């Protein structure tokens, strides 16, 4: 966590059509059939594809600070050292998470001994080996995980998130 290396923060992408369609949340399911076609009801946002690091930059069990989808949304990129479900890279062990606690937004810190992210706010903790599952705590969601792509050159890109990031009502900031 002490590694404050800056990443390239990619261009921001805006939704075509500007603001959200009606009922932005899970729009595809929220809108009753027959009304949905009136809007560009997109299941999920378009995310920027941001280069976070190269494989060569990562050391096992030493998280690197990142910002994704933009610099105001802090996260970590982490090589766990053993493959996990949802892990990226040649060893299937690279993961990236938001580090804003989804309870009240305190910054999580990494505990290398058991590979968890821990919250000084009210003591929630999340398992980096289990997709950010809340091991115990007050948040009503598991940790947003960033989906990763690794190209032939070993460059690691973040390309999406699977839960709402604390402090923003749209993961890709709008407007």
């Amino acid at each position, binding site marked *: 966590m002490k590694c404050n290396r800056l990443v390239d923060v990619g261009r921001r992408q805006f939704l075509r059509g500007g*603001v*959200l369609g*009606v*009922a*932005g*949340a*899970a729009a595809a*399911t*929220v809108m009753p059939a027959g009304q949905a076609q009136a809007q560009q009801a997109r*299941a999920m946002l378009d995310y920027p594809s941001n280069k976070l690091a190269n494989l060569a930059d990562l050391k096992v069990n030493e998280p690197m600070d990142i910002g994704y989808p933009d610099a*105001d949304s802090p996260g970590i990129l982490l090589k766990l050292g053993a493959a996990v*479900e*949802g892990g990226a890279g040649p060893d299937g062990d690279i993961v990236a998470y938001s580090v804003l606690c989804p*309870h*009240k*937004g*305190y*910054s999580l*810190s990494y*505990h290398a*001994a*058991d590979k*968890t992210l*821990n919250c000084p706010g*009210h*003591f929630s*903790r999340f*398992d980096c*080996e*289990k997709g*950010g*599952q*809340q*091991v*115990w*705590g*007050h*948040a*009503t*969601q*598991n*940790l*947003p*995980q960033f989906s990763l792509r690794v190209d032939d050159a070993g460059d690691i890109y973040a390309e*999406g*998130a*699977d*839960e*709402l*990031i*604390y*402090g*923003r*009502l*749209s*993961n*890709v*900031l*709008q*407007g």
Partner: protein
Amino acid sequence: MAFKRNIDRLPIIPAGAKEHNVTCHYCIVGCGYKAYTWPLKKQGTTDSNWIGEDLSRQQGVETEAWYAPSMYNVVKQNGQDVHLVIKPDVNCEVNAGLGSVRGARMAENRRSEITGTQAQRLTEPMVWRYGTWQPTSWDEALDLVARVTARVIDKDDEDDLYVSMFDHGGSAGGYENTWGTGKLYFGSMKVKHCRIHNRPAYNSEVHSTRDMGVDELNYSYTDYQNTDTILLVGTNPIECQTNLFLNHMVKGMQNGAKVIVVDPRRTVTVDACEQVAGAENVLHLAIASGSDLALFNTLFTYIADQRWVDADFIAKSTFQGDVAVAEDAAHPAALGSFEAARAAVKMTLAEGAAITGLTEAQIMQAAEWIAKPKDDGSRRKCVTGYEKGIIWGNDNYRVIGALVNIGLATGNIGRIGGGTCRLGGHQEGYFRPSDAHVGRPAPYIDQLLIAGGGKVHHIWANDHYKTTLNAAEFKRVYNKRSNMVKEAMDARAGATREELIDAIVGAIEAGGIFSVCVDIIHSQIGQAAHVILPAVESGEMNLTSMNGERRLRLVEKYMDAPGSAQPDCIIAARLANHMERVLREEGRAEYADQFKGYDWKTEEDAFIDGYNSGNPEVTYERLRAAGNNGVQEPVKGFENGALVGTPRLYEDGVFTRHGREDGKALFCMGAWRGLQAPGKAQQKASFRFLINAGRANLNWQNWFLDQKNEFVMDRFPVPFIQINPDDMADLGLKPGDMVEVYNDVGATQGLVYPEPTARRNETFMIFGAPNGTQGNVINAGTNELILPNYKQTWANIRKISDATPAAARVSYKSWEVEL
């Protein structure tokens, strides 16, 4: 991989969205929330929204301008689909904007036809017909209930009607609903065979403190912020009263309070206290299970011997003399003066240490933190919170009495920074006619049902199958008895109403039972029911309740009921109407007259008929104005446009809960007598593992909804049992394995969760689970007043399966934060 909603944006609450006062209806703390609703086709924008913030920017820590997907849903309001956001209220003194893992999912746990959440909610009345449950009208269902019920009861002869009815606030309880059922069963009728939602009899969980003159909710939550010592007994508040802990106890520790936690288990509360106060200011007394009474009697003796008592308070506010109330069938211990109690409960440090397994030094340390005057001679303030660890533990009456003894002796009741209070489960909301006819000890309903008692059973949001002891036997017998009636009904398919009712009554007379279930979901005991009536929850109706510091609030209805579901008070009223009609038709006019007085149209009518009749100052309008901070009961008046409440009881030193005219509190004279409930000591000797039971942060108080909540079920697909890793190795267990827990009473199952802080041979299992009923292994033994002893249970453990696929995917890491 953990469950993810894949929701990455939410509709923005527009300026001008409707705002409703909401008190979280799950646990006793009663945190304030605001429900916002607005039309489906409208929304706020990043620069024009409910809060006037620029939402195109990342918001900071503890912002008011964010809500989680769990706080959002689409529901019906006056027949229209509307967006709903329910988010914590920063202006509520209880929680100051904090949500919890339960309350902050209120919106997601509402029924929605659009998002598909809580499709399990009951929407229409159903009756058993053609071998299954068929939807029907309210009138048909209630007519059947009234006709069958009328056949088994008569004026002054209502003992064959058994009633299980919740007595709490919050959830689907509250003053309106306890009054509705209370007026019906204790006013129009005098039903004696009744029980409460979480225990097998109709009784107080805290008889002794009341008999001593001390109401169990006597302080203000702020007392935790202004005290020297917080004493927590058999309670785990960071999980079970989350925002009481986070918003009040934490502040107390930050202000310098020390903490004593009495619990055989190292809970996450102990860890959190160490994080906040520093380990040197936290004393965890990991006593032997069930030995609390020995600890308190030892502490009381030692504190008295050291003269760390409040002599003035004892002289002015407590009974002077010897014995005031003798020990008898209704009083498992005598009550009397301070000196009488001292003589009766005397225990040396050595005795106390031997029984509790603590060191004498630990007990002395606790006594000092509780009572030793400060260096400048001023008295030490100590606030005490207790809950199920002793309420559902060994020797309920005496152990609670012994704890209140310490509060009284040290003058810590009715003072700032003091109080000796239960922490509670649900909110409270009890307003009923007298229950004196039930008697004390109250009838042990579940055992009577097993023995063949009862002909008609009305069940109001109780699920005995999940929350009773001796549960396996109970289920076996109840299924059999209710099946007799189902078979009789099936055999008369196509018959007339009269013939059907004759058939039902015939089966009842042959030992069957006719079961009527009023609930919000089709519960487990509801599988045995013949009539099912759909009820609503808080928010689907206006509902008043008070929290653990007696703070009364009105939850404003913000959405429609599912289908034709009704508030319990209205269901009770309509049932009374049908009873009156049926009895009149049958020519039983005098009895029919007893069912008059239920012309309520709304829950407010029930509130006025009930609570308001005893508290004329309190109206919906005034409560609405009082908002999420409400007013602390008892309400003393209405001045300058606001209700005037009582932040703390007994500040005048006059104790009244026992009804004694002298206003003097009594001490409890209950000596230690080992494991008191029948069969416990023997079970302990015969089985290896303590099966301690309790709740978990994630799903306590709302598990009936959470069994259909993916976020919750993904974390714990099966109820867990925490076991020491060395014991796991002994038994050949891996994390996530399924084990069977079995003893002389029955068997149940659990998912193995390694817990390095668990003591050898001491496990902890989640209580009240829909799948894996811990009650199956709890024997029938209760205390003299039929208080269940869920906590002291011993059993053996064997592996029955490797981890299920769902269980294999979850985290088995420690719950203790590492910062």
